[in-house]
């Protein structure tokens, strides 16, 4: 796992230290009109002309640096962000905290809804409930966040389109829009009105996806001979579903949910930008857009760690749910 993290960080490091990128960096830090010779001398002064492995070693903290000795990622020195004029670690911590709240609410909405819908649909394959839920979940799973986000904003948070003008005219709401189109207020205080839309945007896609997987897994389990055994023992449907089917049916979705976590980061980038919520995704976009190498590297380290941690967690969850994988 450590090896994977190293490889991935080296890859990002190499990509951000490609010559054209460094040239851009020099020009943005110095002046945009620098000649090639000036760029070269700027790079030399800043130490970027040395070989990549040395730079990487210094960044990691395994090689000593001229000014501060061993001071790299491993020592907790993440460098200085050029965009925010702050230490990278501070920026990342703040944005992670913000994203953490978003994720928490997304999970709190998405997981129970998805599992309940999936189980309900898979319980009786082909029934009307199943077909209704299936159509709905396929629709949401097929809609990317940048579409559903825009649609939700138009429907609920626009002063000129969707529901809000109608409600406002009818005098049912005081404000001009039902929900707020931006979540920047949620940075200080989270309310239903400023947070529901970003949460819903991310959760919609995930809910559809997880519900599909739960349904498939539930339907498969319901066709197993041991469910027939339970039925022929005289057990009722509620008992069959809750005691016999659910645990076996949850193995697949739970692993997916945990694998979904890092994937949520992806949605977070779009949604945070759309709703101007200054979380991890927004920070990442800022760093990339402004060629903030230190911040970009910091973000990728955090992302990689998160992905690997959830992978490990999903293996553990799989093992807990499936006694066949336990030793003995």
């Amino acid at each position: 796992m450590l090896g994977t993290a190293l490889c991935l960080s080296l890859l990002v490091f190499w990509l951000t230290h490609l010559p054209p990128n460094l040239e851009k960096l020099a020009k943005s830090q110095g002046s945009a009109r620098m000649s090639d010779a000036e760029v070269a001398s700027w790079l030399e002064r800043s130490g970027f002309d040395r070989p990549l492995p040395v730079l990487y070693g210094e960044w990691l903290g395994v090689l000593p640096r001229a000014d501060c000795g061993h001071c790299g990622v491993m020592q907790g020195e993440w460098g200085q962000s050029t965009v925010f004029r702050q230490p990278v670690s501070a920026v990342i911590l703040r944005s992670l905290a913000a994203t953490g709240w978003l994720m928490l609410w997304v999970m709190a909405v998405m997981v129970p809804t998805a599992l309940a819908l999936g189980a309900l649909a898979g319980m009786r394959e082909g029934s009307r409930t199943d077909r209704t839920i299936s159509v709905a979940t396929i629709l949401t799973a097929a809609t990317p966040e940048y579409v559903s986000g825009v649609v939700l904003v138009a429907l609920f948070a626009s002063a000129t389109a969707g529901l809000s003008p109608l409600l406002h005219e009818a005098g049912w709401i005081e404000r001009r829009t039902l929900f707020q189109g931006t979540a920047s207020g949620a940075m200080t205080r989270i309310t239903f009105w400023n947070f529901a839309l970003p949460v819903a945007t991310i959760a919609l896609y995930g809910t559809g996806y997880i519900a599909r997987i739960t349904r498939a897994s539930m339907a498969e389990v319901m066709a197993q001979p041991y469910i027939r055994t339970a039925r022929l023992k005289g057990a009722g449907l509620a008992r069959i579903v809750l005691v016999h089917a659910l645990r076996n049916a949850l193995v697949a979705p739970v692993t997916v949910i945990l694998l979904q976590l890092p994937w949520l980061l992806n949605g977070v980038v779009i949604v945070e930008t759309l709703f101007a919520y200054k979380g991890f995704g927004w920070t990442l976009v800022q760093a990339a857009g402004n060629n903030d190498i230190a911040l970009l590297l910091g973000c990728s380290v955090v992302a990689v760690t998160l992905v690997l941690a959830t992978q490990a967690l999903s293996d553990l969850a799989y093992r807990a749910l499936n006694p066949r994988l336990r030793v003995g």
Partner: protein
Amino acid sequence: MTEPVLRLEGLTVSFGTRRGRFPAVEDLSLAIAPGEVLGLVGESGSGKSTVALAVMGDLGPAGRIDRGSLRFGGRELAGLSERALRPIRGAGIAMVGQEPMAALNPSMRIGAQLAEVPRLHARVSRAEARAAAWRAAEEVRLPDPERILDSYPHQLSGGQLQRVAIAMALMARPRLLILDEPTTALDVTVEAGIVELLREIRQEHGTSMLFIGHNLALMAGICDRIAVLYSGRLVESAPAPRLFASPRHPYTRALLRALPRIEGARRPPVPLAGGQPLPHERPQGCAFAPRCGHAQGGRCDVAPVPLETAGPDETVRCLRWREIREQPIVAEPLPEARPGPAVLEVEGLTRRFRTARGTVHAVEDVSFSALEGETLAIVGESGCGKSTLARLIMGLDRPDAGRIRLTGVEVQDRPAGRRPAALTAAMQMVFQNPADTLNPSAPVGRQVMRALELFQGASSAASLRTRLSELFGLVRLPESLAARMPRQLSGGQRQRVGIARALAGDAAILVADEPVSALDASVQAAVIETLLELQRIRRATLLFISHDLALVRQIADRVMVMYLGRVLEIGPATQVFGPLAHPYTRALLAAAPRSDPTAALRPAPAGDPPSALDPPSGCPFHTRCPRRAEVPGRLCADRLPPLAEVAPGHAIRCHLSPEELRKQPPDEERRPAAPLTPSCRGAS
């Protein structure tokens, strides 16, 4: 006569498919008296499992009872709601299915699954339910109930799981127990143990049973009456001894002829041509007429044949049953084999698997040779290493030690992919499950053609096509089937394709790993016939891996008995099945079901074979050996006996001397002189 436990009258069950509704069971009338065991025999697709599900009220959304009544102890079951059925399921009628592993919840401990039954049907406390589970586990003779109750299903063997399933079915003391092929997935020895257990249960509790299966030999040992189902219709029913002594319906006769018989040495089972018609292809008159040797045009194929009463408690559905009484029931014996030189020589072959929990001794120091033109059967319980041995010989796995010589060339270090084409072609395999070993998305002709191209690449396209049609002819497949996909063929046809594919390179050695154990009895016989005929024509060597001793006795020239990776006995079939044999061979023979309800019951070796992870010291069989007491001291536990020659070509691994081994009379002579009367008809 007392009220029967279960009475079916005119039961018709249909299933809805895309092409309309088709009856799976038509106009079935049966009754099971208290304490009686009724056998319901039929091949796959005959509707026998549908009967069980109809009784349990669990036909699923596609199934429907169209007509007829199902009375359980006087109460009509047809049309009952799910809610009304619940107290009957489990407590009134319980069912045990075919696959014990699949029938138990993999993520629930055995104890919890057992305790659920009393919790559902009698309002008892957790502790009481647990105690009941304990008693139930003991009742089905599960060793160490405490440990079993705390286990998950994957931690137990197939035989133990089936005992658990039976314990679960019996917990609420049902009046009727439905057994749907309860032993099909199990080894012979384990099967014998389960049948013995069922007999005891019947004696102790007087539970009535509906025993569903396709193996008549097995049913002979437990059923009082047998009903034969063909294509959804009852064709014959009679008390078991009568049915075996003088079957009336041509189909019953054919089934009995196709049955592997432990007493039929070197007489292969007689195949029954053709297949059972699908529900929507049933002919006008008698459904069996197209396959029946006695069918008369204009008589049998005109109108549905009525069920006739042939005697007290005997029915038959045949227009000509009075005319076709006598018929010889055994096949011609096989000609003596004229084996040639050795084509396969195996020496000191050993394969061990290192796993997280220790080393599995899969194959230990196995030596033998197979001769040209002979059938060498390799027998043993599951886990004895016979399939690993086949994989090693085929080059699908590498041995840790030992030599394999194939037509004189050493091949042990060459995996199948790196053997010269000629050697690969010379040895081919016929697999157990033809459905899994054919590519589901390519026409079968194409798949055989692919093998031909590989092995005879130099030939022209035209000559390859001629070879293909020759091969199809050889395995008796109509050439028109070549364009079909595997799923469009029946099990027997698929296995023939598998054989044709194996023969594409003119194989000198065919390794057949349980080639017929997934097939119905009548189809089995036909596939066996094909294999034997090929062997006669081509003088190929057949390595026949099987756990079915009856079949082995009928067709093998030589037999090798394996146990926990070691060879316990090898020799000519006539001798291995004769008076001088290893105690384990004896035990296997004793456990094989015999198609004779009057045969005496024989004790099967107790328990499951020990784990190959931790094989017993000394003789591997000593922990289950019935004759261990005759060997002085701890010799059996301490020292591995040598594989000693007791007669030319016949070697036995046992500490007992040949004379001592011979003392026990061969099993044929142990039969009682007078037929035993079945014990349980008294109740009705």
